[in-house]
């Protein structure tokens, strides 16, 4: 953009200079005007023209900012190398030019929860950037207070009746939601999935695209591996899953189980569902501690349960004996991580999830389907495992907290 502006200015400058030369020539015949004046003007004009051409060539060779290309990101789970890589808040819209001036989008997710508040921030920033380009996006982003597939079904059906441009769903229950989504898609609705849970095409869901975590299973495995290593592959472990039926939670738990099953000296002594509630996770952890005095580790599969578990462990004064691994970026959890109560956290880039969801929804609303040349059918957002040494930095990045 700047290059083009510069070229334009130079061209204008050249034009003006040329005009000056002609005026000089008109008003002063070559016999009357001093030679130095005319020569000087012509020299300026030639120089400007040459410079313009050079810049033009440079500009053409520059990689175009336009075009529609998919947001391809690696879905690999990685350790922290730079705190700035955990969550990237500096996002700018891709070069896609929306076809309309106004869009109406509807999103519903599993449960009203701070994790989705973080996703919302990414969405709002994307919407704000579209707004600066003159595009208005009206959106609904609602969820029940407790996970309910029925509630989700009712919401998306109502949204379809109201003819929203795109309906986005963070699937609470794949089995229950899939046939409903398929029906609505058959009826002409444009439905995508986003954030934590997908209903993939592989299982027969016709949803058009997904933006979010595609590697919950791998996240569970990676965290569990980290814990096992910490425990020297020996000890009793309890799992707090999260919400029953929530794909992401179940997948992580599944990954955890698979890893633990590899190590014969690692034993799963308890598994429970905390329904994404810190308080429930706290009381469940208390029970674990009572029931299993030799408990040495806990695997927490969502954002809330590591907080509940850590509180209970601290309360029981067993922080030095029990290692906790968990998910996401709760501030309290990060503080526990910083203080060594929690051993590791898998932090998802919620901001990017929200930001990219909007970008995908706009394209979908314009009728553009995912493909090689447009955008990926699954936009995978990263998870980064953070340890104690990175906690302070992550706290600073995510919450501006400084020691």
């Amino acid at each position, binding site marked *: 953009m700047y290059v083009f502006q510069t070229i334009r200015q130079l061209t204008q400058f050249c034009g003006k200079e040329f005009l000056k030369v002609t005026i000089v020539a008109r008003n002063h015949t070559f016999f009357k005007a001093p030679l130095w004046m005319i020569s000087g003007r012509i020299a300026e004009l030639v120089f400007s023209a040459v410079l313009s051409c050079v810049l033009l060539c440079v500009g053409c060779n520059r990689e175009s900012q336009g075009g529609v290309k998919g947001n391809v990101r690696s879905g690999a789970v990685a350790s922290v190398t730079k705190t700035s890589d955990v*969550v990237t*808040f500096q996002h700018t819209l891709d070069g896609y030019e929306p076809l309309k001036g106004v869009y109406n989008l509807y999103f519903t997710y599993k449960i*009203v*929860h*701070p994790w*989705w*508040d*973080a996703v*919302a*921030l990414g969405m*709002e920033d994307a*919407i704000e950037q579209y707004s600066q380009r003159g595009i*208005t*996006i*009206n*959106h*609904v*982003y*609602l*969820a029940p*207070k407790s996970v309910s597939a029925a509630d989700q079904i009712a919401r998306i059906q109502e949204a379809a009746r109201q003819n929203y441009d795109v309906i986005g769903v963070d699937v609470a229950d794949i089995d229950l939601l899939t046939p409903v989504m398929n029906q609505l898609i058959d009826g002409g609705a444009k439905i995508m999935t986003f954030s934590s849970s997908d209903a993939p095409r592989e299982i027969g869901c016709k949803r058009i695209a997904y933006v979010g975590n595609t590697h919950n299973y791998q996240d569970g495995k990676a965290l569990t591996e980290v814990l096992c290593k910490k425990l020297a592959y020996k000890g009793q472990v309890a799992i707090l899953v999260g919400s029953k039926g929530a794909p992401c939670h179940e997948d992580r738990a599944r990954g955890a189980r698979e890893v633990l099953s590899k190590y014969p000296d690692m034993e799963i002594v308890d598994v429970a569902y905390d329904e994404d509630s810190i308080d429930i996770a706290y009381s469940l952890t208390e029970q674990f501690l009572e029931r299993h005095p030799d408990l040495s580790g806990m695997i927490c599969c969502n954002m809330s349960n590591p907080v509940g578990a850590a509180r209970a462990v601290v309360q029981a004064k067993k922080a030095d004996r029990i290692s906790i691994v968990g998910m996401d*970026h709760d501030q309290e959890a990060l503080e526990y991580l910083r203080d060594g109560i929690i051993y590791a956290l898998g932090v998802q880039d*919620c*901001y990017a999830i929200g930001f990219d969801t909007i970008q995908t929804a706009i394209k979908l609303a314009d009728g553009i389907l995912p493909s090689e040349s447009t955008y990926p059918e699954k936009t995978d957002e990263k998870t980064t495992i953070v340890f104690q040494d990175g906690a302070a930095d992550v706290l*600073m*990045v*995510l*919450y*501006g*907290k*400084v020691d």
Partner: protein
Amino acid sequence: MQKTTKDKTYRSAFIAASLIIVAIIVGATLLYIRATNNNMDQAVNTLSSFYMEELLGKREVVLKDALNRDFELLGRVVALIGTKEIQDQASLRKVLLFSQTLYGAKKLAMVDEDNTIYTAHSTFSDASRYAFLQKDFTEPRIVTSNLYGAKKQVVLAIPVEGIRVLGKRIIACFIQLDIDDVAGSLTSDNVNSSGKVFIGLYYKNGENLTTSKFDEIDSKQNLIKFIQKALLLAGQDSSKIGTSFHKGEKGLVTIKSADDIKYIYYSPVENTDWMLTVMVHDNTIADQLGNISRRILQRNVFQLISTMVFLIAMFLLIGSLYKRNGDIRRRHQELQIKARNEREQKMRLEEIATMAKAANMAKTNFLNSMSHDIRTPMNAIIGYTAMAKRYSDNSKVEDYLGKIDVSGRQLLSLVNQVLEMSRIESGKIVLSEEPADLVEKANAVRTIIAADCNMKNISFTIDTSGIVHKDVIQDVSRVNQIISNILGNAVKYTPEGGSISCTAVEKPWDKEGYGLYEIMVKDTGIGMSDEFLKHIFEEFSREKTSTISRIQGTGLGMSIVKKLVDLMGGDIDIQSTPGQGTVVTVSIPMKWDDVSRRRETEAQNLEAVDFRGKRLLLVEDNEMNREIASDILMESGFVVETAEDGLIAVEKVSNSVDSGKPGYYDVILMDIQMPRMNGFEATQAIRAILVAQDVHVPIIALSANAFEEDRQKSLEAGMDDHVAKPIDVQKLKETLAKYLRH
């Protein structure tokens, strides 16, 4: 020579004085400046806190105003919606969008009881960002919090009642502030050589509210910890800053380092948990104060120079004035002498004027006395002559009596003219404007003049056909006098066989209800020269010709005519050719009379009165006049009693009252000039007696003083009317009839 030396001495003295005073002022100023500089450091320190406090104070006001405006805006938005049930999200969004546009709010939102947030373009659930709005929210609040992404959220919210959306109660309306924008608006743009003033917004725990740096302090650094660390490094006490900040107190921290001193002033922001901070480097303050003191110094120097220039100018001016003082003194003396001379002249003129007045008064008194003293015997001569004629049957005697009568009347006329002139000159003539019939008066004049013309065989015509409004209100006697004088002259100076014409026409005049009456008298007389015409209106002027010398006259006639015409506001023009004749044109404005009303009154007056048996008291000191009047009155039927003077008249009236007959006399005729008690005094005395008895007896003045002002005097004295002597019997009878009718 002496004067010049003196002036030089004065000048030198003034210059010397000026220089001394200037030197004193300069010296004092320099001492003052030195003293000021010595106290600069102290001033800097003292002023620093004031300066910082002032800097912060202004920004605090700006911030407070901005927050208050936002709260007001929220109030207006809620008021705009009013209390209603909103059926769908679209309607609420529309209102919010409208409000945003109308009030310029960027992020305006409402929250329902389920913590669902509604904005102009979105509806969303929230678990963490606005959860605080669900808890005990009854008053407007400012809430700051850190969000995911290190975002600072500042929300201004007010509780809401009465609005429902989709069946859910709206509990709050809020604006989300961009705190970086707010903080940015407080930052000073004053850049001087050392740097600028830094403004920061912090929580009371020292965390930065914004994402901006506070001078060198990173946005993510805790201010309290920074200051404590800096103070420790400088070996200063750092224990109090933390507590002070947490408590939200105001304070100033000075951090000294090897090459700099930083001043950090902090103050709480009302109704929030924020602290507004300002940081300034020492050299900034010093520079500011230096600038101020430099400006003050410049001003002082300018003032000093101005004062010096002013003083020098003053001294030079005074010197030059003093140099000219001698001239002024001389001039002053001349003026004094002149003034004294003028005063003396004025006194002399006043003396002359007094003498002239006295002489004039003496003349007037003389003439008045003469008037009475001449008129009284004249009255007797004319009266007795008339009576003698009545009883004479000898034709020769009748002839002699006729000539005596004519001469007597001529003499009386002469006296009257002289007196008239005197009165006119004294300004004592008062016009008596009364209704009159001009045509009738003209006819009367015709009768008189015709007789004189017949004697000289002069043809005389009067033409009044040009008069439209013959009934006027004017002192017709004076008009008569004017015309009679002019006609009299025409008759006098027209030889036998000549002709005289008198034409009266009425012309329009500016004033409504008025007409301009032009009377032209044309004769074929001897005429007058142009030279004489220039003096015709002067007193006692007569053309000295052989003809004139044989014709009797005083030379006062035209003077009187001119004065009377001027008094009436008229004009007189004379055209004359010697040997051919003269044309005199007099124009006098007169008011038209409403005749019908007046005739009704006159008709009443004409009703006949029987005087028989009426008792009349005649008060007259002159025996002859008393006898004449008594005879006339007794012939008319009156019972006449007489009194020789005013005192006797009063005694007689008093006696009649004492004898129980206050109305004994039906009428009293009172002379004016009498010995012992004059007519005015007697009238006042009689009135006093009769008023006590509630009786009114008409008292009529009988006086040789025949002028209007005399009549006024009589009326003022308490008399009812005034009749002039010589007595006109008919007029006397009419006057008596007027008062004895009832």
